[in-house]
């Protein structure tokens, strides 16, 4: 069965190609079928392979598959190959599984839209690229998936291309992430030249063997990889694309935030943890970046009125948690949270989508209100998602994964304690901002008219994801809670360090923070009509996410645009124009001597002769 591993990325790719070329000829129904079935089949195969993997692990815990030799130049070769180990297995399952449900949801959500087939073509490609990314055995193949993900995000964020703003957001997403990608690529060049290979496993081995701990080289490599991860995972300071990426259709947001794209950075760092272990400074930086991002994003989420933007900032914040985990070496916790986050964030986006699709795509939470009665399915889904996000203790997956991270941080010495504090503050803020949305949007007075009804393609994904958000955490419980270690057992062959907290105090403290956040939200926003606070400078500061966009605009974008504009005609060309001008001037100057006057001509003759004689005589 494992030999069909290549089908997992190939099927969505095939679906994408068929849809791309055939979208003009296919009916909406067929397009949806192809789009969903390709991912569904991939998910099924992934599930079967995973089952086989768990039940009958291959030798060494790794299954590898070489498809073809990509290129072989001067002793340097890159193979297109796949690698299945517990880490990629987890990612594969999450991506294909969550991806499938998002696809299913999208078939209904996107009904009646222009370019239905094109949408699914891109969506399929997105999943295919992500699967390639996670399954890649070679850094360059991983990079291919990495870029493919970036491309698809561009295509999908700008899906409604009729509005130039969407295009702008899409371009911003691509270019900002590409800055990180370029750093990543340079890191790859460094790996290739220093370690002589781009095969991930052998590169890690060689790094371990040849590079010293904290040597400048390995630190540099780690930082460059971190650059890539920051870009894709929307961490500081390359995070500005993510809120704007909400311009895309809601299923796209779900896909970007839950199953693909933003998790790639986390995956990359987990994948290359050997390097980060060798470079403690880089690893700590990961944690710092994560902590800063989770705080910044958390506070920014407090000041948003657009339901999707709140979710976008919450994603940044949650990825920040994962970075914190990576920073403290709680690799498994990061992956655990990644998985849990995939469930509840997909759920949140889909339920938000379910809300907006009934409200004529109204996304301002202050224009909603009282929806819990009108849209019970969406309300309950959103509520479960919110609970998981704010890590409501005991019953949600988010609680267990976040606790794993915080205990990991707590266990990591002084530096870890600092990160732990940030995490706890973040947990409090998370509770506040997400329940602010819940209270404003779903309770209070009704402001809008609700129309239509849901089909099964909306309801089923919501139910499934709700379930997973609630019970998905039970695969890994902390020692204090029964000590289930399914996940850490699985990952133990690839990722070092055990999962889970050993002490109870910090755990209780964090739980308290989450709950108090919810309570504060309830206190503040139960009566949402008085709660608008747009005017205060503080609100505006956080609404603009601390002004990073403004800063970049002012100091990076504008200068480049200015330079491009003033140099549109290429000042170097002016040099040549100058030469031409001088030549023409020379022409007109010498032409004046051709006056037609014979005596002048004779004077020329005489002058020439005089000069020649002078040269002859004077030497």
């Amino acid at each position, binding site marked *: 069965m494992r030999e069909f591993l290549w089908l997992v990325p190939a099927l969505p790719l095939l679906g994408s190609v068929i849809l791309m070329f055939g979208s003009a000829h296919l009916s909406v129904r067929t397009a949806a079928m192809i789009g969903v079935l390709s991912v569904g089949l991939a998910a099924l195969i992934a599930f079967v392979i995973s089952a086989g993997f768990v039940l009958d692990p291959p030798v060494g815990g790794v299954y590898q598959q070489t498809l073809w030799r990509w290129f072989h130049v001067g002793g340097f070769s890159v193979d297109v190959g796949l690698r299945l180990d517990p880490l990629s297995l987890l990612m594969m399952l999450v991506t294909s599984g969550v991806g499938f449900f998002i696809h299913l949801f999208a078939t209904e959500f996107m009904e009646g839209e222009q370019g239905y087939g094109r949408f699914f073509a891109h969506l399929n490609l997105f999943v295919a690229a992500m699967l390639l990314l996670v399954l890649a055995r070679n850094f360059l193949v991983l990079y291919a998936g990495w870029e493919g993900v970036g491309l698809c995000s561009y295509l999908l964020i700008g899906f409604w291309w009729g509005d130039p703003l969407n295009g702008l957001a899409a371009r911003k997403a691509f270019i900002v992430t590409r800055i990180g990608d370029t750093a990543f690529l340079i890191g790859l060049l460094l790996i290739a030249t220093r370690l002589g290979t781009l095969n991930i496993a052998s590169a890690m081995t060689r790094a371990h063997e040849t590079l010293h701990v904290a040597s400048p080289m390995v630190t540099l490599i780690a930082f460059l990889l971190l650059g890539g991860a920051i870009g894709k995972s929307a961490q500081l300071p390359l995070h500005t694309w993510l809120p704007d990426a909400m311009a895309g259709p809601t299923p796209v947001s779900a896909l970007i935030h839950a199953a693909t794209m933003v998790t790639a950075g986390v995956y990359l760092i987990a994948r290359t943890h050997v390097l980060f272990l060798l470079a403690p400074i880089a690893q700590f930086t990961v944690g710092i970046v994560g902590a800063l991002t989770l705080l910044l994003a958390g506070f920014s989420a407090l000041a948003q009125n657009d339901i999707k933007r709140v979710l976008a900032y919450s994603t940044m914040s949650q990825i920040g948690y994962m970075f914190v985990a990576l920073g403290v070496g709680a690799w498994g916790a990061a992956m655990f949270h990644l998985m849990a986050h995939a469930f509840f964030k997909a759920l949140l986006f889909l339920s938000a989508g379910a809300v907006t699709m009934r409200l004529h795509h109204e996304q301002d939470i202050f224009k909603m209100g009282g929806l819990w009665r009108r849209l019970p399915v969406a309300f309950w889904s959103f509520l479960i998602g919110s609970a998981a996000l704010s890590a409501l203790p005991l019953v949600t997956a988010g609680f267990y994964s976040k606790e794993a991270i915080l205990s990991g941080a707590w266990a990591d010495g002084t530096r870890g304690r600092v990160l732990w504090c940030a995490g706890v503050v973040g947990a409090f803020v998370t509770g506040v901002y997400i329940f602010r949305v819940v209270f404003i949007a779903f309770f209070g007075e009704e402001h809008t008219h609700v129309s239509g009804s849901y089909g099964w393609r909306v309801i089923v994904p919501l139910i499934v994801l709700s379930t997973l958000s609630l019970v998905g955490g039970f695969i890994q419980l902390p020692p204090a809670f029964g000590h289930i270690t399914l996940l850490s057992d699985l990952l133990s062959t690839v990722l070092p360090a055990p999962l889970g907290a050993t002490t109870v105090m910090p755990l209780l403290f964090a739980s308290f923070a989450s709950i108090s956040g919810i309570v504060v939200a309830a206190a503040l926003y139960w009566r949402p009509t008085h709660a608008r606070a747009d005017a205060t400078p503080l609100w505006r500061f956080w609404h603009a996410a601390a002004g990073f966009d403004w800063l970049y605009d002012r100091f990076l974008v504008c200068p480049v645009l200015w330079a491009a504009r003033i140099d549109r005609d290429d000042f170097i060309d002016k040099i040549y124009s100058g030469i031409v001008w001088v030549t023409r001037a020379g022409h007109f100057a010498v032409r004046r001597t*051709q006056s037609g006057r*014979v005596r002048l001509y*004779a004077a020329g*003759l005489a002058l*020439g002769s005089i000069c*020649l004689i002078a*040269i002859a005589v004077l030497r």
Partner: protein
Amino acid sequence: MMTAAAFRAFAPFTLLGALTIVVMLLIAVRRDHRLTALSTIIGLSLCCVVLLFSAPASPVPVTPLFIVDGTALFYAGLVLGSALIVAIISYAYLASSGHAAREEYYLLLLTATLGAAVLPESIDFTSFFLGIEVLSISLLGLIAYASPRQGAAEAGTKYLVLSGAASAFLLFGMALIYAEVGTMSFVRIGVEAHTGDPADLYRLVGVAMILTGVGFKLSLVPFHMWTPDVYEGAPAPVTAFVAVVSKIAVFSVILRYFNLAESHADTSLRLGLEAVAILSMLGGNLLALLQNNVKRLLAYSSIAHLGYLLVGFLAADSLGNMAVAYYLAAYAVTTLGAFGIVALLSVPGTGRDADQIENYRGLFRTHPFLAGGLTLMLLSLAGMPPTMGFIGKFYLVAAGVDSRLFWPVVALVVGSVIGLYYYSRVLVAMAMPIEHVPVRRAAAPLFGKAVIAALLVLLVTLGVYPAPAIAVIRVAVGHG
């Protein structure tokens, strides 16, 4: 006094002289344009044929004034061949004019050719000077010919005055040298120059003044100013003659003088010549840059081409001599073709030739063959493959590089680039659609086109496969 071998070797030129007399007598008997033209053409062809037969007899001295050797025969052949082509084109040109006295034209053409043809053989100041003057006086008549044309008399006057002054310089220079060394024979001047006083001021100044005179005939900067005016004022075939035949002849004789009298050794003269070469290349091309009159444009470009030739001249070795020979051949074919096409397009009765650049608009549509021909000619002038001009320029640059003539080669490159601009202006004009009322154009006669076709074949064949021509040149001038 003259041996049989000398007679045989000199036969083409004797024949040419006789031909002149015969044509003159023919005109006296019966004024008939076609007859005169035909006898001229046949006679010139005959001279060319005879020339081939005198080759085996060479090298042989003919009186102290001349020597018939490979170099001489090669250039004489170029002169005679070019004259023949000019004669044919002239017939096409004059046939369409209503001018009454067209016959003397051929007479003057023949005397001019004679003057030009004896120059390559000259090894003495007397023959040098006489050849140039026979050529110049005949040209004076030709330039002012067909006088209803605007500017013909003006062009003639300018040529008269300036040519006279140039001749005076030339003669004075010769006299100075004669005063210094006591001989007018090139070879003996060379000997004297070697044995005589190194500070021979008379000789140096003499050569400088000779160069003034020759520079005028070759229209080198700064002695060039007459060129465009005369080219414009003269009938197109005469322009071709001035541009080609007189240039080849004068260049060959000055080349001979410098080779024999070994003035190349003199650094100060070389400096002067380098300056003249550079000025000619740059000045000629600059002057042509935005020129709207095709004849003037070609005149300016010929100034530049003579400047290019000076690079080979300055190289002053076997390679340089061969380069000059090939380039002159290429220049002859190309310039004859270009002016030939101008002549074929002109209607002599209208007062001016087809010399405005507007006249060439849409030529590709109305005269595709001539337009295509002119395109190739201009490409050759610009030194682009697959034409003789390309090989020629290559050869010259080779000679220049081999002799380490840094600045002249730089000027050649710069000049060529400028040249490209104005040649392509004409090319572009021919391809443009006709906007205004079409200019009156002659319907070129078939034999005129045939001449152009022959030139084109030569141009391309020797441009793609120049080995035979180079072999001939190597035999003729390679060891000169």
